[in-house]
């Protein structure tokens, strides 16, 4: 017993393996049949105001978000001016390009097809200052995009940025042939070179209230890893800067806390975010969204592959599994006719010809339009 109790009076072997883990959590579906109006957009003091009206859906719904169509939407000024919006695609309402008088309070008024009325709170039109600097900087493992701005009058204080990325890419295999239903013929349309555009999903806000100047220096807008497929030839980034009111800033901060910042031990509890749109028909009805009034400042940046370090190897994202080409005719396809082989264009597309044989692959590997568009954007050089 004594020997068991007192082994070498030394240290212990540590048996601890910290057993923390993160698991997916799927609570029983909350079966609320309620669906609430979502108002997304802002009152643009200089240009086209675009407002999207949609409805909320269940968390488990796979489909998209239903649009709120055929509503009557207008911007109203406190002095009684009315600037109507028209629906140019389902749920998307736009004004003509216009300049709204400054130093005026504006709100958005909505009457749905169902006759329910909504309005945002009146808010003073803010003026967005110009961008001082918008550039990328090469770092060890990727490209850091910074944005800087300032307001000498110190009137802005709250900033928000949205960005839109566009990059040129190619599919895994360049197809020179197409199947017209009977025969394989030369392809005329380029489905190898495409462009892809993606909007920012993160909320980028910054406040200079705690700084001695109303100046944003090198705000880290976005980081592109060296291996990103975006940097394979030419990459373009367009940033849109908005000045915010304090309330709108708080609103975006709250949205950010709810959807992005939750997960570490000390993060705040999620909360029901209150926007500034209210139902005039039923004050208790929740309405989601915040309609601010501001102007937009935007700038575009191009980054060429040649200006980046040569040892950065970008993965061709989306084409990782496209390694080999199929061959026809071959042992595998014995007994198949050419027509049978190429019958379903969702299955395979001819790529090229090697002697008497055709090579082929799935459209996911060959047709770049699956991931983007082969229509060159207007701004592309």
């Amino acid at each position, binding site marked *: 017993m*004594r020997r068991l*109790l*007192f082994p070498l009076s030394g*240290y*212990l072997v*540590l*048996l*601890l393996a910290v*057993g*923390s*883990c*993160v*698991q*997916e*959590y*799927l*609570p029983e579906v*909350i079966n*609320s049949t309620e*669906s*609430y109006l*979502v108002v*997304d957009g802002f009152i643009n003091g200089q240009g086209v105001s675009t407002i999207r009206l*949609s*409805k*909320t*859906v*269940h*968390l488990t719904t796979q489909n998209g*978000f239903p649009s709120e169509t055929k509503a009557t939407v207008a911007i109203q000024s406190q002095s009684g001016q009315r600037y109507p919006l028209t629906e140019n695609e389902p749920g998307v309402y736009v004004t003509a390009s216009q300049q709204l008088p400054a130093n005026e309070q504006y709100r958005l008024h909505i009457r749905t097809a169902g006759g329910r009325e909504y309005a945002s709170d009146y808010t003073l039109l803010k003026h967005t200052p110009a961008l001082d600097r918008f550039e990328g900087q090469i770092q060890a493992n990727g490209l850091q995009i910074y944005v800087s701005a300032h307001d000498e009058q110190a009137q802005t204080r709250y900033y928000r940025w*949205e960005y839109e990325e566009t990059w040129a890419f190619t599919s895994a295999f360049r197809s020179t042939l197409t199947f017209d239903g009977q025969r394989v013929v030369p392809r005329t349309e380029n489905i190898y070179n495409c462009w892809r555009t993606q909007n920012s*999903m*993160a*909320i980028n806000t910054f406040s200079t209230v*705690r700084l001695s*100047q109303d*100046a944003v*220096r*090198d705000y880290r807008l976005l980081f592109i890893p060296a291996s990103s497929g975006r940097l394979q030839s030419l990459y373009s980034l367009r940033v849109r800067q908005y000045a915010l009111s304090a309330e709108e800033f*708080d609103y975006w*901060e*709250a*949205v950010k806390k709810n*959807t*992005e910042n*939750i*997960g*570490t*031990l*000390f*993060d*705040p*509890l*999620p*909360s*029901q*975010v209150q926007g500034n749109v209210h139902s005039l028909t039923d*004050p*208790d009805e929740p309405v*989601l969204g915040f309609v601010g009034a501001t102007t937009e400042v935007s700038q575009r940046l191009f980054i060429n592959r040649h200006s980046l370090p040569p040892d950065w190897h970008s993965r061709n994202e989306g084409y990782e599994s496209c390694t080999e080409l199929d061959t026809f005719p071959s042992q595998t396809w014995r007994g198949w006719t050419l027509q049978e082989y190429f019958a379903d264009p969702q299955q395979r597309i001819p790529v090229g010809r090697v002697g008497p044989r055709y090579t082929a692959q799935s459209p996911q590997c060959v047709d770049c339009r699956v991931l983007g568009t082969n229509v060159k954007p207007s701004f592309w050089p």
Partner: protein
Amino acid sequence: MKHLFSFLFLGWVLGMATPTRGQQPEPQRVSVSLQQAHFAELVREIEAQVPYRFFFNPAAVDSVVVTVRAQQQPLPEVLRQALQNTPLRFAIDAQNRIYVTRGVTIQTELPDSFFQPEPANALASSPDPADPVPATSRAGSTSAFKLYEIGTGSATGKATLAGHVREAKTGEPVVGATVYVEALNAGTSTDQFGFFSLTLPVGRHEVKIRGIGFKNTRRQVLLRGDGKLDIETEEDITTLREVVIEAEKDRNVASLQMGVERLDVKTMRQVPTAFGETDVLRVVLTLPGVKSVGEGNTGLNVRGGATDQNLILFNDATIYNPSHLFGFFSAFNPDVIKSVELYKSAIPAKYGGRLSSVLDITTRDGNKKKFSGSGGIGPLTSRLTLEGPLVKDKSSFLVGGRSSYSDWILHLLPNESFRQSSASFYDVSAHLSHEFNEKNTVYATGYLSTDKFRLASDTAYKYLNQNASLKWRHTFNNKLYGVLTGALSRYQYDITSQRDASVASELTYQIKQYNAQADFSYLPNAKHTVDFGVSSVLYHVSPGGLTPVGSESLIKTDVLPREQGLESALYLSDRIDVSPRLSVAVGLRYSLYNALGPREVYRYVPGQSKTLNTLTDTVAYGPGRVLATYHGPEYRFSARYSLTAVSSVKASFNRTRQYIHMLSNTTAMSPTDIWKLSDANVRPQVGDQYSVGYYHNFRANTIEASVETYYKSTKDFVDYKGGATLILNRHIETDIVNAVGKAYGVEVMLRKLTGKINGWVSYTYSRSLVQVNQGTPADQVNGGEYYPSNFDKPHDFTLIGNYRFSRRISSSLNFTYSTGRPITLPLAKYYMGSATRVYYSERNAYRVPDYYRADFALNLEGNHKVKKLAHGSWTFGVYNLTGRKNPYSVYFKSVGGQIRGYQLSIFGQPIPTVTYNFKF
């Protein structure tokens, strides 16, 4: 050896013993080496070496085998070793005769005072308090048979017997020991200084002393007048079965207190913990009515109260953050702690300043007789405590330290972000006590704890608790004593962020508290115990400062103005034993709070929601000027009525006021929470609690049962508007709302204190609800309806079970179940700003999955030889035996445009631990 004396075999002794006093000759030394030998062999060996003769009944020693190995050791020591694991006892008389008996020990001498009382006995002291105390009384009375004559004077009437109960070995006071005279049904218990005062009719009494951790004893007293009797108790070395939770067996039924839990450090040691180290707060969490939002969190929610509503005292100094390392460890070194008392309903009038509970942690006093130490080696931390006398029998010191090596472990983990992280802590406690004379004793305590952690290399957190307290206890006379206490508490944290040079900054927070208080206890007669006193607390809060770090930083220094407040209170309480069946305690505490300048106070449009839009005026107050005053009575009432000898009913009513609030918008208690003082815009919290309980003991007080119910209402406690900003907010009142709370519940508990199987089972049903129904609709939470608080967990079941296989091996099994805590869940998703986002439910409308966990521990003790270099014990434990993945936090994240829910389990698999504890 003296602990073996338990029986007086009178006839035997009378026939043969010649009293020999004081001059015991040096015992002979012998060398014996026997392995599993027959007892007769031992006799032969010893009789061959020394001129001693054995006397025994051959039938009694038959089949007894002995093992002993001794080289030139004193004879009694050799015998003790040889017989220690046998039922045999021995005694040696002056004529070199050794009596070996089975079960009982023979008394070879008569007590000194056997035939006549000795009036000149040193233990008697005169009733005049000014008289010098005889030096010999320091040693205290040790004999159960001697007759002690106390006082001089009249032969009739009543007299007060007072004194201290101390441990003979260390000189430490024994707290909560019962001192009583069974025949008169009169008794009392010792206070935190081991002091007791008992008023009895003059005459001869047998005073019994009973308690935990020492052998129950008694004293024969001839009481002639007021006097002093100091009692020394012997450590109960052989028994390991103490799992005693309360000092008195019938305390459950007989004590006046309700809603009080007293935990002894021995009890706490048996409860398995995640990291193998005894954790005071984690054991407190197993008690009925005490909950926490999640595991790895030491924020206590007592009877539906918030985590800031507990007054945590460490030797009378307030501790603001009682945890280490995100709350995985409590900030108290188990080796220096003597006991922990939690008051959750009838809070004594002496305590105030927090709504829900008082957690009073007291340290041991340090060994006054000899130098000793103890410590432990665990998987994440190690600790060492040293203690000893400074002046023998008069003053002692106790110093304990604990440090983590978690940094080292983090770096071993196969995860990049863990390796860039660091986490470490240490704490040091020191305690000194000095007895100037019988009437004056001084105690000094210092405490320091520091935590540092850095998460994935960019933000470093550091926090620090510093406490000091000085107590002077003065005994005026047998009936009155007072304690003067001065204490200082400081808590601070700083967070340094250095990721971006342009916004590199340091955020600091600090609270300092200066306490002064005088407490008196007056025991006029057996029916009354009067406590009264006065206290004052001065607070200094630096609510936050942001300063730039580095020359490139654009951060503008932003330091919030300091807040000051003075909280003062007067109290008086009396415990009245109306009849043997009925006791009542009435108390009144009157507290007064002044918020002090210099400060700028914002004024808002009255009756409107406080926002920057309703801010109308700023008023500046000069230094020391009072900017707001709040005051009010705090009633404390409790009563006990004994239905039978084993059952009673108790009731209590309590009002408490709290002038300091913790601001935190996280569910878990976090080190970065801010304490805010009441001021012109933030009112104090007031809480009322009513509770009624029924108590019943079964099987000769070995099984205790209790049912307590309570209803609690709270007003003006702090809740937040959605998305509130709490840090560096100059007008925090615009982000917080005054909430109304109510909580109610039933707590059922069954405890078995002794036997091979012991432990407790408790079940609690409780609710804790909050209502925010004032101001504009935007301020209201959930439309102004009552909603569950963050810690509303209606069902809670706890089992703490210990099973003792033998004196050396014991095991412990814990089981805990509770309803999942409330959570705000996402209800719908929507598309905005190019991403899918979530629309959340009303606050706390849903619950996380239920919590349950089982833990197991096995304690192996070394042998129980009294004399050896060090006593060691091993604890092997498995925390979360079933590996259940209890959610610590549940959260939703937008990943690639999809909303996904995740649950984080901190201890998601069984965690084995090994700890080695030692004592020397």
